[in-house]
């Protein structure tokens, strides 16, 4: 009786070890990774431990749904794609031993390493010359079997390009996209996920941005069952500029996740991260993690990250976790913001007081909220199409 009481006292007083840790068990004491850049990375699948689902990088992901991509063999053969673009861009399959592979990053999770171990050839998109070029790479025939893929995007020094990765149709895909923005280049990469309802897509985008180069990365996720797209951007050259934008609209049962990592490595780099999302319908779940690391050599850095979520119905969940790590005091500024809120009744009242119906008022406010990101895409045809797609998402939610 007294022994039981003693044991329970720990519970009662709340002095037990934290459930996700094991940090203070003397025999197995582990130290958490202190700095974002120290996180374990490897391109070999077996180097990563079996995923149980409570790991920091997986605990917000529906692991059961993505399990085949984490553990199973992936078909890494070349797939069909469609290219629409200017002549100044080369698109070709290259071998695994191509010198460019691995220059922009290394896998940080087991599904990413699985894709890295599996791909037979990488699809290389290379931009050169001084003239601005545009390219849309459409992928819509991955099909239902588990696949791994690798893409290399290189913007040669002083080149200028706008590249859209347009994703539709069925997919069970884990992939890595390496992006190298050489000195003085200006590159925009927009990844649009308009997958079929049952698609599962895990992606890691790795980018390095050279001296005085400018990189804009936009993630647009509207379709798919689970989409997890993690961009890691290293501003590695002095004066590099990185803008990381995201827009997502999760309906009932959809899981959209983005773990953003922006690393200010060099001096006078500027970073802006802005992700905005809407959630509507039971089981809609979004995750945004924003890691910004300002390294010890990144003097004069100017950095700001934010995430805003607009909750349109009951039964949704939005996780929003900004992390800002600063290793030098000599910066221009660094900040972060996160807000998740319901529809603003005062906005609704204002619009209705001008005769606009409630449904139309909601539509205006949501489109307005998301259009800040749509306007950053920089391709008017795509912007118009996405406005319509968001409009359609809203219409589905209203009728459902």
């Amino acid at each position, binding site marked *: 009786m007294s022994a039981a009481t003693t044991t329970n006292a720990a519970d009662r007083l709340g002095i037990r070890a934290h459930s996700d840790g094991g940090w203070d068990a003397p025999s197995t004491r582990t130290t958490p990774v202190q700095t974002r850049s120290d996180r374990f990375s490897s391109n070999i699948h077996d180097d990563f431990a079996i995923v149980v689902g409570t790991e920091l990088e997986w605990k917000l992901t529906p692991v059961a749904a993505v399990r085949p991509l984490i553990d199973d063999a992936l078909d890494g053969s070349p797939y069909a794609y469609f290219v629409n673009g200017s002549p100044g861009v080369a698109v070709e399959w290259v071998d695994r031993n191509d010198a460019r592979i691995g220059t922009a990053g290394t896998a940080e999770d087991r599904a990413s390493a699985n894709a890295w171990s599996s791909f037979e050839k990488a699809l290389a998109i290379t931009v050169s010359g001084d003239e601005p070029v545009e390219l849309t790479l459409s992928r819509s025939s991955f099909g239902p079997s588990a696949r791994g893929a690798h893409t290399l995007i290189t913007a040669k020094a002083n080149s200028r390009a706008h590249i859209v990765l347009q994703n539709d149709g069925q997919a069970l895909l884990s992939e890595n996209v390496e992006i190298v923005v050489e000195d003085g280049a200006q590159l925009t990469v927009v990844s649009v996920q308009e997958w079929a309802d049952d698609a599962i897509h895990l992606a890691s985008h790795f980018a390095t941005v050279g001296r005085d180069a400018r990189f804009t990365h936009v993630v647009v996720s509207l379709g798919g069952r689970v989409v997890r797209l993690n961009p890691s951007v290293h501003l590695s050259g002095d004066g590099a500029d990185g803008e990381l934008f995201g827009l997502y609209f999760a309906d009932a049962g959809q899981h959209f996740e983005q773990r953003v990592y922006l690393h200010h490595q060099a001096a006078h780099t500027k970073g802006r991260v802005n992700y905005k999302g809407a959630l509507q319908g039971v089981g809609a779940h979004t995750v945004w993690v924003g890691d910004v690391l300002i390294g010890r050599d990144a003097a004069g850095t100017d950095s700001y990250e934010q995430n805003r979520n607009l909750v349109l119905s009951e039964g949704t969940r939005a996780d929003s976790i900004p992390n800002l790590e600063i290793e030098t005091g000599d910066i221009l500024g660094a900040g972060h913001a996160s807000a998740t809120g319901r529809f603003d009744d005062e906005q609704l009242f204002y619009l*209705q*007081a001008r*005769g606009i119906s409630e449904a*139309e*008022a909601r539509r205006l*406010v949501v*489109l*307005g909220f998301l259009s800040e990101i749509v306007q950053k895409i920089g391709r008017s045809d795509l912007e118009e199409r996405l406005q319509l797609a968001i409009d359609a998402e809203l219409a589905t939610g209203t009728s459902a």
Partner: protein
Amino acid sequence: MSVLEVKNLHVSVETEQGTKHILKGVDLVIREGEIHAIMGPNGSGKSTLAYSIAGHPKYHIDSGSVTLDGIEVLTMSVDQRARAGLFLAMQYPVEIPGVTVTNFLRTAKTAIDGVEPSIRQWVSTVNKAMADLRMDKSFAARNVNEGFSGGEKKRHEILQLELLEPKFAILDETDSGLDVDALKIVAEGVNRAKTNTGLGILLITHYTRILRYITPDFVHVFVDGRVAEEGGPELADRLEDEGYDRFLTTDNVTTDSQANERVTSQGPSETSVG
């Protein structure tokens, strides 16, 4: 001849301290082309009257009626009231990020009229109305109220008033926070709307200053949720000289000091939110 009629209106709001009765039997009749000034101390219920007529969900109608040409307004949704011909120029217009003034005005005009305005004519109408209110053309491309100064917000409210052509407009402290130049521009707009469309106006104000530029036909003094005194424009002059003190009789003092206290205690929290 249009008539807006408020009869024995009782309104309450829910606060953390419980239900608070704000309007305690308001009667008003406003006819087409008339300007009625509602004046009164802070906390007397002036804004509550404005928002109750417009249909803000925060205000609970306990009893009474508001009719527009004999039709009950209080059972209508907010947007139905606007389409029926009511307009509220707000004291604190909210920002609508990502929605441009152009888009907003066209959407509102379409909603009010039931048909989309013909593009060419509409553009020139908007441009003229903006020029009349000395608003720069760049205004049209900005997002609704986002980053607007206090004066710009008020001019934007009057721009809507002129373009949407309601039968009756309630101006909720449109004069507050305006310098004299902006006040004149705003007043011109209101007078123009009255001349052009025979607008009836309920002008809510704490100060008599705006009444130099918009001449009221009737002045109603609001104290503790009721009309305490009514008269012509001369009543406003008297208020300018004497203030509201003589209305704060023993009968009113208790309730009114409570009302003032409520307003005062809200002050800091509003500041911290803003």
